[in-house]
Structures are given as C-alpha cells and as structure tokens.
C-alpha cells in the first residue's frame, strides 16, 4: 500500500475524477428538457435514462447543480407523515435512499439516527398519536412515547416541568436519518451524465414557445432549444417559470432560514424537532449543530438573513438545550420554499399537454428527491402519473380535494 501511494504521488498519470462531463454546446433539440438542476431534476434525468431508456435529455440550470434548495435544506429524511398518500410516498423515498449510495456509487453518508418530534401541548399529543397509528398501519416505524422514554433516547434534553413549554412526550421515528445533500445532486448528475444526459449549468430559461397547448421550444440565455417534453423542477421559482408557460400555481414563495454552530465534540445522536417551539436540531458528522425554524412570516424572493429568525430560534432552542448558550453560530443561510395551501407537493401533468411539473416542495422536498425523480420520470415517459403520485396532481385544488399534510410539517408555519 505505501509503495502504491508513493508511486501514485510521484507519477504523472491521474485518474479522471470529473463528476460532470465537460460543458457542451446546446443541441437544437432534446426529447426531454428538464428545467432545474437540483436533486429532483437530476434524479428525474437519471431515472428517465436508466428506467425508460430516454437519454436525449438536457438538464438546464441557471446557476450550478445543487446550488438551490438541494444544498440549502437541513438534510433530514423521514416518512412519519399524516395522510396515507404522504406516508406511502415518503416511505418509498426512504426505501430508495437506503440503497442509493450503492446505486450511484457515491458516499451519501446516509446516517440513521432516530427522529424525535417533541410534543408540548395536549393538541400535539393528539396529532402525534394519530400520526403514529397512520404510520404503523402503513408499515412505517413510528410511536408516541412519554417523557421517560424521551429522556432515555436523548438525556441531553431539558425535561424540567419548570419551563414555559414542558416536554409532554414525543413522536419517535427510529428510522429518521440524515443524508449528505450535495452528494445526492452530484451522484444523480454523474450517473445521469454517464448514461448520456446533457447537463447545462449557467443556462437560464427565459421563455417558452407555445403552440396548440404544447411547448415547442425552450428559450434560454444560450439560445433556443426544440423539445419533445418539458419537466419543470425549480422549487421556489416554480410560479415564475410556470407563469412564463402561461399557467398559475397555488404556491407562495417564502424564505426558510437555517444555521450551523461552531463544531463541538459529538454529543447529540438523534434529530430533535419541536413543532410547537418552531425549531429543530441535529449534530453533523463535523460536530456542527444544524438548526432551523419556521419559514419567514411573509413571501419573498430574497435569501437575506434576519436577526428576528435567530432570536426566535435561539429563545426556544435554549429552553430545550440550555448549555447551547455557550456555543456560537458559525454560518447562516436561506432557501426559497414553494409553499402550497395543504402542505403537500404538486406532481404530475399541467395544463400544457407536454409539460410536467414537480413543485410545491416547501420545506419537505429533500427527503422526497429519489421518489419524486423516479415517479416524475415515469410520468414524463408514459404521459401518465404513476399511482404513487396521482393524489398530488395540480388539479386537486380546483377539485377541492386537498391532502391536509400541515399536521406533519416538521415545524409550524
């Protein structure tokens, strides 16, 4: 081994370690154009090529791959949702995540650490019991536990009754995990690229040519591309891109801020969430505490940071883990959440016959990346949404058939 290392170090030959193929010119036509090079768009590109043999595909991103919400979420995956449709969908996504490192040949640092959603009121105990029963019925590991069990799983938590919002119990989800989010984008991009998908970074979509209810071409900052089908996967900018295509969405774009502390010695294993206190925390492999709260109080397309966010977050966080008063914040950022009225995503067909949409991912999109990508690839290839995502159709709002997932959003909004 040392000899091989020495030879490698002194040698001139270096293996090609590019993740993406070299940038190419835009072709005049692609069978499928995917707008948005985040996790969802790249995953859809990969499954289109892998499962459906459609490889004349272009992924366009105005910035760089994974530079939007894929790199801005707090990397938590779980499936303890409230509606049957939601639980089935997110459970499928976690099933795909569990073997994704092998499939994409990249270390996603999938780390199953357990997920506790704390309850501080009788109302949240009631919702959690409901969630636990729905979850178990559908085969998802999930249980309502009391304060003693919370203390056993996470002794660091302040379980005193002498605080403003004492911990009354928790929804325990032992399979809750964290995944290195950048690697998900890179893994899908590399695998899709190897199957022939073209990934064009720095290519912004500025308009669509529409004839007879179909998109015939996509206008970009690098020129015009003819297209067979179009998939829109642009998260917080969904309304803007869909407005260019001539239809409106039931979505508001609201910033979601998050932060990490300076690194400290490993002390916290599970992911801790409190819906009532609008905060959540877990400790990364680097020792940083990853923390976030509720979305901002009004719609905005700016990723600016606010003192209000940090004050609100810390006031609650210090009640849960008082010793954090000694720890400093190191970095802070924001992403743009595309919020739907029922806190469930929008996946499937659009008013344009060859245009498909995956949007409304609000604050819950990262965990859905593999299932959304796989299902949307099938939807684009077959021109019909698979059963798994049929309930998430855009038309549910016009048909007054919403999903009601607000009770399972990680923190209040």
């Amino acid at each position, binding site marked *: 081994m040392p000899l091989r290392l020495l030879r490698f170090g002194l040698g001139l030959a270096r293996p090609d370690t590019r993740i993406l193929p070299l940038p190419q010119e835009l072709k005049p036509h692609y069978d499928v154009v995917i707008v948005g090079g985040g996790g969802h768009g790249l995953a859809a590109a990969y499954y289109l090529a892998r499962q459906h043999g459609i490889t004349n595909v272009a992924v366009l991103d105005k910035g760089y791959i994974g530079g939007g919400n894929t790199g801005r979420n707090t990397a938590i995956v779980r499936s303890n949702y409230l509606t049957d449709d939601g639980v089935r969908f997110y459970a499928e996504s976690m099933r795909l995540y569990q073997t994704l490192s092998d499939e994409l040949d990249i270390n996603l640092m999938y780390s199953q650490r357990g997920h506790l959603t704390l309850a501080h009121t009788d109302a949240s105990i009631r919702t959690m019991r409901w969630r636990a029963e729905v979850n178990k019925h559908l085969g998802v590991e999930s249980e309502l536990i009391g304060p003693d069990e919370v203390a056993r799983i996470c002794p660091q938590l302040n379980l005193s009754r002498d605080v403003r919002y004492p911990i009354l119990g928790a929804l325990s989800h032992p399979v809750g995990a964290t995944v290195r989010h950048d690697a998900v984008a890179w893994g899908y991009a590399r695998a899709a690229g190897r199957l022939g998908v073209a990934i064009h970074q720095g290519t912004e979509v500025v308009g669509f040519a529409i004839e007879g209810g179909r998109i015939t071409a996509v206008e970009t900052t690098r020129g015009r591309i003819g297209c067979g089908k179009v998939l829109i996967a642009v998260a917080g900018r969904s309304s*803007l891109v869909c407005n260019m295509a001539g239809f*409106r969405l039931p979505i508001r774009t609201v910033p979601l801020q998050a932060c990490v502390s300076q690194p400290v010695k490993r002390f916290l294993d599970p992911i801790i969430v409190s819906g009532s206190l609008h905060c959540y925390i877990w400790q990364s492999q680097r020792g940083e505490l990853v923390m976030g709260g509720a979305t901002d109080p*009004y719609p*905005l397309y700016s990723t600016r940071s606010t003192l209000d966010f940090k004050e609100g977050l810390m006031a609650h966080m210090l009640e849960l883990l008082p010793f954090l008063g000694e720890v400093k914040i190191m970095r802070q950022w924001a992403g743009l959440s595309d919020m739907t*009225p029922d806190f469930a995503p929008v996946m499937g067909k659009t008013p344009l016959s060859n245009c498909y949409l995956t949007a409304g991912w609000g604050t819950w999109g990262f965990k859905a990346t593999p299932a959304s990508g796989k299902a949307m690839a099938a939807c684009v290839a077959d021109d019909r949404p698979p059963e798994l995502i049929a309930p998430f159709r855009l038309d549910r*709002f016009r048909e007054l058939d919403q999903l009601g997932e607000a009770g399972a959003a990680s923190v209040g909004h």
Partner: protein
Amino acid sequence: MKIMPCPLNGPRNIQEFICRGEVRIPPAADASAEAWAEYLFYRENKAGIVREWWCHLPTTFWFIAERDTRTDEIIRTYTFDALDESGSGR
C-alpha cells in the same frame, strides 16, 4: 429589527404585523366552484412589487402595503380607502 410604517400606528416592529396576501377582487357570491378555488388557492406569487393586505395585530388595524419581494423593501403603506375601484392604488 425590520420596521413597518403603519398608517394608524406609525413605524412599528414588523413582528407586530401579519401579512394576509395579495389584494384581489373576490368572485361574485354565485360564481362557480372553480372560480372560488382559483380565488382561494391560486396566487400570482410575483417577484417584484406586490400590493398586499397587512394587519397590525395589537390594534387589529388592516391596511395595504406595497413592497418589493426581490429586495424586501417596503415601498409605501396606505389605508383601504386609498384603493380605487379598479384595485390599483391612487
């Protein structure tokens, strides 16, 4: 602290206010279910200058604010009676 200039209470911490969304004209009471669904759920969600209903919670005072959703600037605020019939501010 971000300041919202309230037409009734003057400049106040924006945490005292709640944003209740775009100013729009509701459909007629006998409009179709689809028209009501459109009104209730669908949004312009513009990146640019928007006109919205805001409420100062301690005084329950409702008013209109114009702000830029790209820059988080509040451009102006005024009371409901300054809206003309077409829905565009005077």
